[in-house]
């Protein structure tokens, strides 16, 4: 299970989360929304264990974590292929085939021997996506993963994410600014509310066959005292 329990977080002297609790649905895609700077990235970092809350605790699911950072974070001295290869255990067989298949899936099959510096921003982002899917994560954190991709590529990436999700049913937390994207991908759409964030609103969602209620959200509001 995953659970954020009464989190309090200050960042640079500013309170970002205050007594915030949230339990994302397991084996579902939850899209996180909210105005920029609200603390969505902090929430993912806390979920990944990269940042500790000042107060409260996080219960993380067992198993592998995948993380698509806002920046690609590729090793500049490794080729595209090596950037994926080095993550896999040395003894795992057919790892080259798996890496190739994933790179093909993100449309980077022809660029496996190039270095990150030779790629465009969108291409690097796609390698970073392939890397996140590589280990068949049980828990996938994605921080605006499709930012800067053109529409066609983005559609392809949606398809890839959804097919991965179908195959392995990981728990996904996806930060996005794009409501359309959230509606295409998310089983749940969560909008963080308050400043500092104290609660959230769940937005209606096509996938859950609910009505469009972006402007009058409150289907469920949790505000923990």
């Amino acid at each position: 299970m995953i659970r954020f329990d009464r989190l309090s977080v200050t960042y640079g002297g500013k309170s970002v989360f205050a007594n915030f609790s949230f339990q994302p649905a397991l084996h579902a895609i939850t899209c996180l929304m909210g105005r920029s700077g609200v603390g969505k990235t902090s929430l993912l970092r806390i979920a990944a264990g990269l940042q500790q809350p000042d107060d409260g605790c996080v219960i993380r699911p067992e198993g592998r974590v995948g993380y698509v950072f806002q920046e690609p974070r590729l090793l500049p001295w490794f080729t595209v292929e090596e950037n994926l290869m080095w993550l896999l255990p040395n003894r795992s067989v057919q790892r080259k085939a798996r890496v190739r298949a994933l790179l093909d899936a993100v449309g980077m099959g022809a660029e496996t021997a190039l270095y990150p510096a030779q790629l465009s921003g969108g291409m690097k982002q796609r390698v970073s996506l392939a890397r996140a899917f590589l280990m068949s994560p049980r828990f996938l954190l994605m921080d605006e993963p499709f930012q800067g991709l053109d529409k066609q590529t983005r559609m392809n990436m949606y398809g890839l994410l959804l097919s991965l999700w179908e195959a392995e049913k990981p728990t996904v937390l996806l930060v996005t600014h794009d409501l359309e994207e959230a509606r295409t991908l998310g089983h749940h759409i969560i909008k963080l509310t308050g400043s500092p964030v104290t609660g959230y609103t769940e937005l209606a969602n096509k996938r859950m066959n609910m009505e469009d209620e972006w402007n009058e959200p409150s289907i469920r509001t949790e505000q923990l005292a």
Partner: protein
Amino acid sequence: MKASTTNLNKRGYLYTGIGLVTVWGIVAIAYPAVVLPSPYETLLALLELSRTAQFWHSLGVTFWRLTAGFGLALVSGVLLGSLVGHKLVAYQLLRPAVLVVQAVPPVSWMLLAILWFGVGGGAQIVVVFLALFPIFFFHIAQAVRQLPTDLLEMAKVYETGWIKTIRAIYVPAMKPYWISALAITVGMGWKTIVMAEVISGQTGVGAVMNTSRIYLQTDEVMAWSFVVACLGVVSEAIVRKLSGGERHDPIR
């Protein structure tokens, strides 16, 4: 393009070398050998020296001292440099102290070291250590401070383990600093150790050079200078060859 640049570089060294030796030869005609021996006389002196056991023994002694001082500086510089690279407070505390060590001329250290340890007590090793330690210290501190935290976070999330993290992130990220520190220190080490031996006398290349000076055997001083200069250049070239040039080995 790259090949032709290298060729030009190599030819550049050759032309400059020939030019310098020619100028040296012409100037040497005007002066007696005791002031400026000709290139030919220097070469003869070098051949003569290389046939003596003392030549090789002195080289051995000097090389051992250099290795010891270099090794001490390397180990302590890397350890302390890594420490202060991680802790800013430690850096702020240690930096002035190391700057002082660096600011004091090696000659002063040598005189003090002789007073403290005596000429046979490793004073030369101490001076090499003090000259090279700050270079390792500052290079490694800088290398640690500029480690790519974003990539280290990524490695942590993907649970790559510390061996892979060191090989794939620490080593290549710190490599430019390593190469620079090693190239500077091996070249500087040779000059420092010989200077220290000139002052301490007794044994080693510097001591033999000083004896030659006392007996006005300028050709021997020139021959030794040539040998030491070559050793410095060659060691630096070896370091660059070993550490630089080729791309980091991918993990397969």
